[in-house]
């Protein structure tokens, strides 16, 4: 029997999207283990292909979102995640996981602050693929995901930095309109290796077509990637893209 690549999903106090994210990873082919941050050490990463940071409100978003999770992670494994990436490992952060990856400095420099609306926003958003990425290869150029966050506005030290991210492909996905005030409408970032990726919207909440908010769309439209697999939503294709990239690089 073919061995499945291992995914490790880090769970902080306040993480609350771990179960559905683990489900998505299992559905596309990963062997997935949810590990509390208290049990993390450098050996935990042995044999792991993907480190996953899912959504939620780690440490109650105290101080600022992702800040305390970053400090505790650094305290636990130091430079372990950088070594993991340098040795070919993949990291994916969704929503709060994206906030933590930016705080850890594993993604291009940026910070996720309060939406310009000043409110928690829970809505579906249209997104555009802006660059090639192992996480997006099976997705069409435009797709939809649900988002749910209060602090999802990506800001950089200067507006020019964000423009450079668009030009260089570091801003791998953008919103198709200004939903939260993110510079350059950036929804997600990738690092130079392409193996570290984070974004605010939630692909794990659109794993199946039936998860879509519009009954007309989910009952009639062809699937987003056009592969003929009618039951899958766009989120499936993000996780499947990742799986195929991981298995082809192993």
């Amino acid at each position, binding site marked *: 029997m073919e061995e499945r690549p291992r995914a490790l999903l880090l769970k902080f106090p306040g993480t609350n999207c771990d179960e559905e994210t683990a489900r998505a990873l299992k559905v596309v082919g990963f062997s997935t283990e949810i590990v509390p941050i208290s049990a993390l050490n450098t050996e935990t990463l042995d044999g792991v292909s993907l480190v996953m940071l899912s959504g939620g409100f780690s*440490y*109650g978003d*105290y*101080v*600022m979102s992702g*800040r*305390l999770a970053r*400090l*505790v992670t650094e*305290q636990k494994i130091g430079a372990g995640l950088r070594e993991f990436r340098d040795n070919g490992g993949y990291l994916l952060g969704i929503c709060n996981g994206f906030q933590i990856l930016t*705080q850890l400095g594993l993604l291009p*420099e*940026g*910070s996720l*602050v*309060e939406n310009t609306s*000043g409110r928690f926003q829970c809505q579906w958003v249209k997104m555009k693929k802006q660059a090639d990425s192992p996480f997006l290869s099976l997705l069409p150029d435009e797709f939809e995901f649900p988002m749910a966050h209060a602090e999802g*506005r990506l*800001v*950089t*030290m200067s507006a020019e930095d964000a423009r450079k991210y668009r030009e260089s492909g570091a801003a791998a996905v953008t919103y198709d309109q200004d939903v939260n005030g993110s510079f350059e409408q950036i929804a997600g970032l990738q690092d130079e290796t392409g193996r570290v990726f984070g974004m605010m919207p939630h692909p794990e909440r659109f794993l199946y077509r039936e998860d879509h908010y519009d009954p007309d769309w989910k009952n009639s439209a062809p699937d987003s990637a056009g592969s003929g697999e009618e039951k899958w939503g766009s989120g499936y294709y993000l996780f499947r893209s990742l799986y195929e990239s991981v298995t082809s690089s192993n």
Partner: protein
Amino acid sequence: MRKTFEISDRFIEAGDANELLYEPLGGDLTFRRTRRYEIDFEGEENNLVSFVEKTLRDPISQDLKKGEDSAFTAFAFVLEYGMKPGALDLEKEAILSYYRGIENLGFELKELNIRQRIYLFGNSGDESDRFIRDICNYAIHNWSVILGEK
């Protein structure tokens, strides 16, 4: 020794103060929020400042003001509030838990007092009672009001 730090957000502009109230006040009051940390410590001050900058401030999106002076001026009034002594302050506990996990910091943290500040800007009489009523919880918070210079 005691040091005070106040952290404000660089990218969040002043919002309509009516958003803080159950019933709109009318007028043109706007607000900004900050977090203020009063720290009693022993040891090397530079190490404390380094800890605060690393732990409590985001270098991209936040400004850090050291000392007693307010982060903003020209305000109508400021509502400062925080947890009463004895009430569980989860932010404080999370910070202290992180602090206790690090060795050889070069200072000893004796006391940490966290206060939220809401700066109100605009032409107003003393409307602070309305904000106290709608923002503070009498069971767990204590508060004070600082009036701006006329």
